[in-house]
């Protein structure tokens, strides 16, 4: 094709795209929330990849949304950076009530390790907490330790011999392990993995001796008798009848309470009517028995907290985690990775 024609074509292309782009921008700035919120589908950002725990909670919510909120949820997965990418995007989204995101305890922990674009106290506000899940401490069943104290005694006698697996440096499971070690005065070598299933595999294969993970991944093995659970991180024992015998850390004298929770959050500055509508709708969803079954199938417990309670929890959890991370030296560990 002759060069001149090509150049002409390219210029046309440029002009068209600029024109259309300009028009669109002007249009989008003019929208505001109409009184009949919601009038169109709501986008839900899930900061992890499809199939993960948070994503499944999102899909459970998605199923109930049309019934209680009148509009469908459109789930968009934006994985990366252990959630950073998704939450960054959420905080810079326009607060018109049509872009929401899933939140979990990682939201609070990530900023402790490095600068994140989103600053959750000022950029995001929680709408609801939907479910929680405690972590449990498991060992292989063949080991002679029957309870937490046995492990601690052994560890004191054989320093630095016990290794525990967790799902990533700085993750909740890592924090729990290090806190236990610090509080009990023992040394546990940490072995990082990329996810709860990898940790379980290593434990089953006897490559590590201890692990802190969520109950769902290990439940079958505990029931089967290949693994033994020694403690759980909740305030109370687990509600699952198969696992209700596991004592909490608190009962055994250690003040270790760290739960994973899932919730829904929005960029700050939501119009009040949208916020109330959402809060009501979400409360109804969470009370729905079918939702409850779905969540429990995923291994979590439904625990509803309204926007105000969620905000408080964010702040307290955030502070506690900051203190723990500092105390256990995890922060130093991470800082030591860079010269």
């Amino acid at each position, binding site marked *: 094709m002759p060069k001149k024609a*090509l150049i002409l074509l390219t210029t046309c292309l440029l002009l068209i795209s600029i024109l259309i782009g300009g028009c669109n921008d002007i249009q989008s700035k003019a929208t505001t929330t109409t009184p009949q919120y919601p009038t169109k589908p709501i986008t839900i950002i899930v900061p992890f990849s499809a199939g993960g725990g948070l994503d499944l909670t999102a899909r459970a919510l998605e199923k109930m949304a049309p019934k209680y909120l009148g509009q469908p949820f459109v789930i968009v997965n934006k994985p990366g950076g252990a959630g950073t990418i998704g939450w960054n995007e959420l905080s810079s989204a326009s607060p018109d009530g049509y872009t929401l995101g899933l939140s979990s305890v990682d939201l609070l922990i990530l900023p402790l390790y490095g600068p994140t674009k989103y600053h959750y106290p000022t950029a995001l506000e929680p709408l609801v907490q939907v479910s929680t899940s405690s972590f449990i401490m498991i060992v292989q069943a063949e080991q002679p330790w029957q309870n937490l104290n046995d492990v601690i005694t052994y560890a004191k006698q054989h320093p630095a011999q016990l290794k525990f697996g967790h799902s990533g440096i700085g993750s909740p499971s890592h924090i729990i392990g290090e806190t236990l070690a610090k509080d009990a005065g023992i040394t546990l070598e940490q072995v990082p993995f990329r996810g709860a299933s990898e940790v379980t595999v290593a434990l089953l294969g006897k490559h590590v001796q201890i692990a802190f993970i969520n109950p769902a991944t290990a439940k079958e093995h505990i029931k089967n008798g290949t693994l033994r659970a020694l403690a759980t991180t909740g305030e109370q024992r687990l509600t699952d009848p198969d696992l209700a015998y596991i004592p909490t850390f608190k009962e055994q004298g250690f003040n270790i309470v760290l739960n994973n929770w899932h919730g829904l959050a929005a960029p700050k500055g939501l119009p009040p009517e949208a916020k109330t509508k959402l809060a009501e709708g979400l409360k109804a969803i969470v009370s729905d028995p079918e939702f409850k079954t779905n969540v429990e199938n995923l291994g979590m417990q439904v625990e509803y907290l309204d926007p105000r309670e969620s905000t408080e929890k964010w702040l307290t959890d955030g502070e506690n985690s900051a203190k723990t991370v500092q105390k256990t030296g995890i922060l130093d560990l991470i800082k030591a*990775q860079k010269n």
Partner: protein
Amino acid sequence: MTEKIIPFFFLLGSVVYLCLAGQLTFGTLQSPRSGFLPILAGITAVLFALFLIFKQLRSKESIPKENVDWTKFIFILIGLLFYITIFNIIGYFAATFIFLFYLFKIADTKGWIFPFMMAAGSSIVFYLLFKYFLAVTLP
């Protein structure tokens, strides 16, 4: 000629990587840190790149080059970059339509009506396929 330059790029890249990796702590064998593998890999890469340059300088062989229409190359690149820039702004359908039309013309398709129809038709098909059938979120 190009193949003599490429190893230099590798050398450059490896050296840059190594410098950046130097910022990461190496750690000890007891507890290796984040810089462990990157530094090892970087050093090996630099060595290999040097070997390759040395070998290239000595050998005389060259690979038969195909002729490339560089103007087309540049224009295709411009088209691609445009596509992804306007992708989010004007939406999938419109962006794809413009992009396809543009590419069809670059690839020497005769006439104007036919590419227009093809571009429109294909954009519709793709849009429907991805958005409704496979439920992919498209802007």
